């Protein structure tokens, strides 16, 4: 089973359980359908990080209050703001299939999430390469909504990156992303190469979550 399929299965809540053929077929079909509608787009900007501790994270004219993010960025000199999306056609496809077949719709949803993560990883590798040339190492990416890093900070991210214009990523009044298969994240960069095991998912305090990576 390839990595993408494995991820999709995890999002569907299978945990360690064996997957039935019917679902596997739905997963394969869904990836096929998604290939024709997704439009991967991303944007990032790099800023000098002025302060990052448990009280405050500071760069440009931005201040963020989040202990978890402060920890994540401790020791970094730079901060990368990052946004990515699979585009609005993905939402339309899911919305359309929801009318016809809910089983397919939830599988599509999971597959799209897996594709998005894969894309973000690929983008991050590219950013890492670029910064590596300047002698910096990246930390794991950290998104608003992880731990105590409030999703309200998405507004700042969207504004600083001009995501609406550049990649079509917008926020609703309630701070939801539209297109829904989108990500905003910050990535720290420091001179020292730290082995970071605690990534977004593993850092979460919801230990009983069925989607959790480190219990699988």
């Amino acid at each position, binding site marked *: 089973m390839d990595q993408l399929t494995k991820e999709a299965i995890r999002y*569907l*809540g*299978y945990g360690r*359980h064996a997957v*039935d053929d*019917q*679902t596997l077929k*739905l997963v394969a079909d869904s990836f096929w359908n998604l290939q024709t509608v997704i*439009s991967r*787009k991303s944007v990032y*900007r*790099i*800023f*000098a990080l002025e302060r990052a501790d448990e009280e405050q994270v500071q760069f*440009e*004219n*931005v201040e963020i209050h989040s202990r978890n993010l402060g920890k994540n960025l401790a020791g970094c000199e730079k901060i990368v703001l990052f946004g990515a999306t699979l*585009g*609005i*056609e993905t*939402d*339309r496809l*899911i*919305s*359309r299939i*929801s*009318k*016809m*077949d*809910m*089983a397919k*719709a*939830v*599988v599509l*949803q999971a597959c799209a999430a897996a594709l998005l993560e894969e894309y973000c990883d690929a983008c991050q590798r590219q950013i890492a390469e670029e910064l590596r040339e*300047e002698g910096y190492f990246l930390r794991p990416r950290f998104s608003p*909504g992880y731990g105590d890093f409030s*999703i*309200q900070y998405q507004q*700042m991210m*969207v*504004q*600083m990156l001009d995501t*609406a*214009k550049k*990649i*079509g990523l*917008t*926020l*609703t*009044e*309630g*701070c*939801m992303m*539209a*297109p*829904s298969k989108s990500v905003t994240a910050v990535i720290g960069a420091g001179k020292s190469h730290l082995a970071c095991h605690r990534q977004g998912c593993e850092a979460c305090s919801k230990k009983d979550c069925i989607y959790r990576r480190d219990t699988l």
Partner: protein
Amino acid sequence: MIREDLGKKLLFFDGGMGTLLQAKGLKPGELPETWNVDHAGDIIGIHQAYIEAGSDLVLTNTFGANALKFCRDDYPLEKVVQSAVSHVKEAARRAGREREVYTALDVGPTGKLLKPMGDLEFEAAYEAFRQVMIYGERAGADLIHIETMSDTYEIKAAVLAAKENTRLPVFVTAIFDERKKLLTGADVPAVVSLLEGLRVDALGINCGLGPAQMLPILEELRTYASIPLIVKPNAGLPRQKGKETFYDVLPQDFAQTMQTVVEKGAAVIGGCCGTTPEHIRSMIQVCKGMQVKPTEKKAFTMVSSYGQAVVFGKDSKIIGERINPTGKKKLKQALKEHNLDYILKEGILQEEKGAHILDVNVGLPDIDETKMMVEAVQGLQSVTSLPLQIDTVDIRAMEAALRIYNGKPMVNSVSGKQESMDAVFPLVAKYGGVVIGLTLDEAGIPQTADGRVEIAEKIIREAEKYGIEKKDLVMDVLSMTISSEPQGAIVALEALRRVRKELGVHTVLGVSNISFGLPCRPVINSHFYTMAMYSGLSAGIVNPCSEDMMKAYDAYHALLCLDENCSRYVEKYGALKVVSGLGSAADTGGDAAGSAGPGGSVSNFGKSGSQPMSLQTVIEKGLKEEAGSITASLIGKEKPLDIINRWLIPALDQVGKGFEQGTVFLPQLLMSAEAAKSAFALLKQEIEKSGASEEKKEKVALATVKGDIHDIGKNIVKVLLENYGFAVIDLGKDVPPKTILKVVKEEGIRLVGLSALMTTTVVSMEETISLLRREAPECRIMVGGAVLNQEYADQIGADFYGKDAMQSVYYAQELFSHEKQ
């Protein structure tokens, strides 16, 4: 005046503003419009540099000056816009140029996504644009330039705001990517259709790409457009080196490519991100004195949606007729019950069967047609990219639909009656559209082809008065049933030929009228369809779910060399074995199409020679088609209720239990639910046929709360509740508390299910609960969603927290069984 020069004389815009402001100290995230007030000197200086470089059109520093993006109490919008306009005028005065400098009010996007994919109401976007445009005109702007747009829907809101509230010329440019599409999916012909339909003065491309990358898009624009074209590229692509962002096309190179841009047909050129007064100066030096290659008038009949256009041509288009309650009991019922899903499914089904355009008629005597039409149009546009055909005789409903439609629709219809033309043409002139002209007038339907051609001519002449061209008219020469009008087909066919040939106008026909009152209608319909296409039918309004009609369509296109290498034909029919009578049984042209045929297919499963599976097994395994065919074979052998109790309920219980124990997972649970659903649908038909009334179902209302646009969780709960025999009233997503209360009261709802995804939207869940508590205390409320847990649910006062979809089913069952006792 700008309108006199436009398209005749090459006009030069200015270049980038943002990059220059950043160089002067604008911080990332800071609102550039505040600089009109705080740094007037800098803004005037930039404008002046562009004017001195030779720009004719200078954009005000108002790109983000709309109430949705720019909300600062300390900077009143009117003041910001007013100073922005005066800065351009002041710069022109200081530059002291001989020729006129036009002040273009710059209007950029709101940064929000409109409904149904986002949460911004169309009219809220309109309102935001309206404000800034009124201020701009008042302050003395010479034109409005709507630019950097990524969404046709937002463009439409902005153009309507400009047209309805100002008298200024309107230019529109959008960002296309390398796929020649907008971020929201629209291709070039879709954008051209919309903008020319709305009658803007000039259209084109800006931002996103460098000059060379814009050439292929310009070429495609020239293929479809009839009005002057604007091209404003970036100075190449942005690159980041350390902290600095820079653009990689230098002024001289920029100028060279812009020369090609003019040769390829742009009438207005300028620069976008990264371009500087140097870029513009070089560009003007190179291009000054070049002739404008005028955009030729095109004769394409085009309709569009948010994503794609349908261009009428040699092949015949299929307009799906099934969303029309006439003679359709189920659709009537769906409309009365406000069951939008039924309509959307009809739309999706027709698209899957090959329709190019969908007719939408929701007229019933006892419903609010305007409201229903708007909901149907918006709903369909969230699930299909096919252009729609607004079909109504109610002018109010027609206008409402034309207004909120995303694209350039078909309009069904106008007739040769003066009253009809007086009412419909102004709407088409304003909103854009391709309108169907019915060849009948005050004297009725002419008996002869001559008479119908004459009326068609009259309609064309009258349309001209409104500036509606022939390409935006499609004539319906009317098919009268041959059961009462023996010459009906002959007259229609002759009229088709003549309207196409003599008048040069496309044609449309409601094909199946021809057989009204005759037995076995598909036989007549499909043959008449072939004859009509051969006589010049540009688009047939037909039932794409009818196999006979589609066979006629496919054969015609293969025969007349309109299906290259017969590839579509071979793909569709290559795998089929010819069986006599194949497919005709379900082909009644009415409600039966689309349902499973009786018997026959049951032998298809268990092919490998294994034992045929029971209904219970196939449902447990989630095999949808098999569930349908086995149910069909059981009907007649067992009573519907027995089938439900013996096979369906045990299967659902088994799967539900497995889900709870962690041996069955969500996709499987839902596959079983979908399989059961197809069985239930057949059984329901059977029960209705027998005249027995269905058992009265308990009602449950479901909604995703205000502010929340994710409805997948709610939809999962809905499918399961329906399977367990509840009548679900689905209120959709982003539902205000008041709407929920209204439905609870009107329908006497005893149980409401609310869904919310995020902490930010749980707040509106809480509001909804407290409103219901106050106004409908007898109603129970269950909640679910990603961020919720028992504690949180208790805190906001819910009666029940469902950690998964099955829990809500169990709660509903328990609640209503208690009440029965």
